[in-house]
């Protein structure tokens, strides 16, 4: 079987928003909505740290990290369970999708999703340019929408747009059921977290923190499974720093990705949840 999953290396993520915007472009996401938000773990607002400015000239307590957040494509997805019309479903390859023709706009799924990953088209969706962008048909007013792992690309053997367009190589997509895939190897070798692990949702999205990985290995827009030379990783583990190796740098903040208080951090500029 195939189970698609995403690894996001937060040590590599530079908060540049390329994933957030290319998601909107690729998926024709309406103005005012984001399927993929780059949240700041730190202060209350985007691009602000937690902690205080050092008064003694030392490095102080300031801390900041970015947490790109979209649908986590949970193995045990609460949105699938609560949908009264089976509009939200899990594909055989693990991708959680919505059948927009079936969606009745009840928004139970939005209440059930602990990741604030879904948005609702309260109004007639607007696009700029008006005719829309990207490779996905626009969704109508009155339905809930969200990240699909770019299933329309995956079906064609292409990585999701956010993965291809990341200049920091911080997003790695692949088959979690394949032990030789880069995503599986990274989850094995690096400290990874799933968001809100205690909720039992078992997301197929993993976040690396602490020690930095080498990131996405291929420059191609193709999925790893489509490439002959699967990745530089298949040649051996020489390049893979072990967990025991000295930290390669990149200050390990020690902060948890399990979002404190059971809430996904609020992102000021992005409309979260779709009810505004």
């Amino acid at each position, binding site marked *: 079987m195939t189970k698609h999953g995403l690894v996001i290396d937060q*040590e*590599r993520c*530079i*908060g*540049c*928003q*390329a994933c957030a*915007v*290319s998601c*909107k*472009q690729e998926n024709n996401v309406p*103005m*005012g909505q984001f399927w993929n938000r780059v949240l700041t773990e730190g*202060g209350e*607002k*985007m691009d*602000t*740290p937690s*902690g*205080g*400015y050092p008064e*003694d*000239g*030392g*490095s*102080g307590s*300031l801390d*900041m*990290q970015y947490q790109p957040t979209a649908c986590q494509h949970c193995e045990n997805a609460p949105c699938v369970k609560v949908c009264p019309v089976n509009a939200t479903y899990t594909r055989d390859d693990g991708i959680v999708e919505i059948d927009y023709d079936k969606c009745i706009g009840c928004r139970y799924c939005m209440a059930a999703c602990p990741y604030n990953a879904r948005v609702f088209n309260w109004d007639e969706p607007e696009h*700029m*340019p*008006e*005719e*829309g*962008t*990207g*490779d996905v*048909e626009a969704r109508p007013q009155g339905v809930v929408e969200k990240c699909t792992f770019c299933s*329309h*690309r995956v079906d*064609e053997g*292409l990585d999701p747009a956010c993965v*291809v*367009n990341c*200049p*920091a*190589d*911080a997003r790695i997509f692949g088959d979690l059921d394949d032990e030789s895939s880069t995503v599986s190897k990274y989850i094995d070798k690096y400290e990874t977290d799933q968001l809100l692990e205690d909720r039992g949702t078992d997301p197929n999205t993993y976040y690396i923190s602490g020690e*930095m990985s*080498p*990131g996405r290995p291929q*420059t191609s*827009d193709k999925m790893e499974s489509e490439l002959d030379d699967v990745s530089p990783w298949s040649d051996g583990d020489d390049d893979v*720093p072990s967990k025991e190796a000295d930290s*390669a*740098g*990149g*200050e390990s903040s020690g902060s948890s990705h399990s979002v404190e208080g059971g809430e996904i951090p609020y992102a000021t*500029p*992005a409309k979260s949840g779709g009810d505004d």
Partner: protein
Amino acid sequence: MTDGKAYRRDVLKAGGAAAALGVGGGGFLQTLVESEEDQPSTSGIESFVGQNDVVQTVCSPNCRGKCPIDVHVRDGQVKKIEPHPPEDEQYKRACVLGLSHTQRVYDPTRLKYPMKRADWSPDKPNPQGRGPDAEFERVSWDEALDLVADKMQSLKADHGAESVLFHEGSGNYGQSGKSFKRLASLFGATQSAWGIDTNVGRGFNRVTGVGAFLPPTNEAEDWENANTIIVWGSDILSSQFQMDASKILDAIENGAKLVVVDPVYTTTASKADLWLPVEPGKDVHLALAMMHTVFEDETYDEDFLRKRTTAPALIRKDTGELLKASDVFEDGGENQVVAVERGSGSPVALEPETGGAYALFGEFTVDGVACETALTRLRDHVADYAPEKVAETTGVDAENIRTAIRWLATRGPGGIAPSYALGRYKHGHIFGQAYAMLMGMTGDYGRHGNIHAHHSGGATLAAGDWASPSDADPGPSLTFPEYPDAMIDGDPHKIRAVYSIESNMMGNQFPDRQRFREAIRSLEMYVVADMHHTDTVQHADIILPVPHWFEQEDICSGWGSHPHLGYRHKVQEPMWEAKDDYYAIRGLAERFGYGDRFPETKRDLLRKFAGRDDDIDFDTLFEQGTQKKESVPIVKYTDAFPTETGRIKMYDDEAPSEEGVTFDVPRPLEDRTADDYEKADEYPLMFMQKHSRFRIHSQYEMLNWVREINPEPQLDIHPKDAKARGIDDGEYVRVYNDRGEMVVKAKYNDAFQPGLVNTDQGWWSRDFVEGHLQDLTHNEVSEVGQTMAFYDVRVAVESAPDDVDTDKYGSDNPRGSGAKATPTGGD
């Protein structure tokens, strides 16, 4: 690339429709489809993937990207942008801005037709009509070019050709500038000379013989070999290197130590092993403390200093001049300096790139002249800059200063990646001198893993003397900071007309905006060519509409970015009546009688340019879309330095002085950051204008996707500074000094050092509630640096007056000015 005939036809037809209707505003795209049957049908389509025509082209602003991109076109419309790996695929790149051209290409701020200010005529320029309330009327291209040519000719006859200024900005990395300069040279016009971001490079150049903006540095692909990277005053992962972020991240992943020196806890600082929170303007002190540490630890690279620097050269104690070989040896050179050989104690003339048993330290008497080595002089100079003492000046912990430089000095090859920000302080050139010498001490030149600037060199197209043909009699040049005096007072000579391309500078990006507006008002003719209706365009007399990059064929240089040239294929024909700058340049040349000096078509011109560059084959570049320039060295500084001695100068006996300070060795000199600056109490906060990830200068201001993330200008302020003034988070504040004011929203931000506030640069007038950030900056430059000092600015901050109108950011207008487009030419 694909054939693309179908969509080109569609867009041509559609453009005609839009032109005929003269439609503007947010909904104009509707007019791009003529009839119902042309409406893109989506019914029954399961996937659009693979349904697009894809054109490989290049994104071309003055950033560190020059990203080759694929533009996907469907039903005659640009639908999305994706990165296209260049010939050397490791330089695959893109950013949030380049990926958003889908919105920019159709933005209502695009200029459509040549325009003339309604109340301007060549004989009655009516200068007071310029500005926000100016009205424009549509003219034909021929009328526009006739007006410009006639006025320039009459000014030339009456006042000399130098009364016309050809001003070129950095807004397009194609080759237009070369033809623009060629025309200026043939006409004899005054030409613009750069006055932004040239400070640090000047200082570095004095030491090494190279460096104009920032000095050359190893190409990005080599950065992963660095063991220590000191990023100095740069949010490199947001503003300069984000397209190459993977290269720095790979270095970190390989085990490099990342040090960030910055008064702001930036995204880059958040990735650092060590952050040095220096106070603004104190960087030279910090560099001298690092030199002090290297001397204290004796971790300097002795072999390098002997072989490639003037460290062992003797300074005459009587005159302070370097002892010359011609003073000592009969056949000694006048530019050769002299060292003393250890053991024998005999003098020896220093050759470039030649090591020897030269004494690095000590006092010697040669032919009765008392001397000491340059390194001795430097060591004595920095003796006053012990880290503990400098900690008090700079605000940086002494032990952290030592740790940072110990990493660079002892962990193998590495480098210092300084920014343009350091040069945005008035005397920023001194830092350039200081770190060039510091890296000489650590021996970090010419090795893999060395870094000397916060962006790499990249490739440019060599076009020989095209810009300045040998038979031309070019006019004088004028630096940016000199513009206002020249236009207003005729100093050094009167500028009466300006022809501006690729620039939103005079109306938006230059400091002391009110004085620049006065300068514009003193002109008889202001011609502005641009893609968008910018603040600068609003002040023009003649507006020449330039197409979006996707509508202009060109060869894009990878300067400052990566070692490729890119071919910017047209994605679609120019919309409305927009025309390539080359059309106007050649049109004016014809009217001046130089038409035969300019090939008829852009393609011919580009082919000619490529033919002048031995490394480029036009057909290969055209077909591949990119070509790596193999002559670009990956590792720099491997040969003798282009100084008089062929060596890095560790002492400069011909150093310039300013304000009574001589820079024989780096000596701190500050302007508004100085503790005793006279107006420090009146304007207690330093004000910088950081480059953000959301702009390239003032480009991309109109992107609606980006404006959802970053909706309006803000003032980053430490909560302590805000609370002391009774300012709440999110409240509108008035920021002011003796030049002007602006009103923006306060953003509490603990990343900012108390005493330092910031508004990201690149906002247009329409984005501010009141004023503009450039109303606060000044145009005073240092004698040596000749560089605009945007960050060397003081302000005061208070709550905005109650009656200030902030409706543009009210709930009815959640996307800020994006929802209210500036009226465009032709509406």
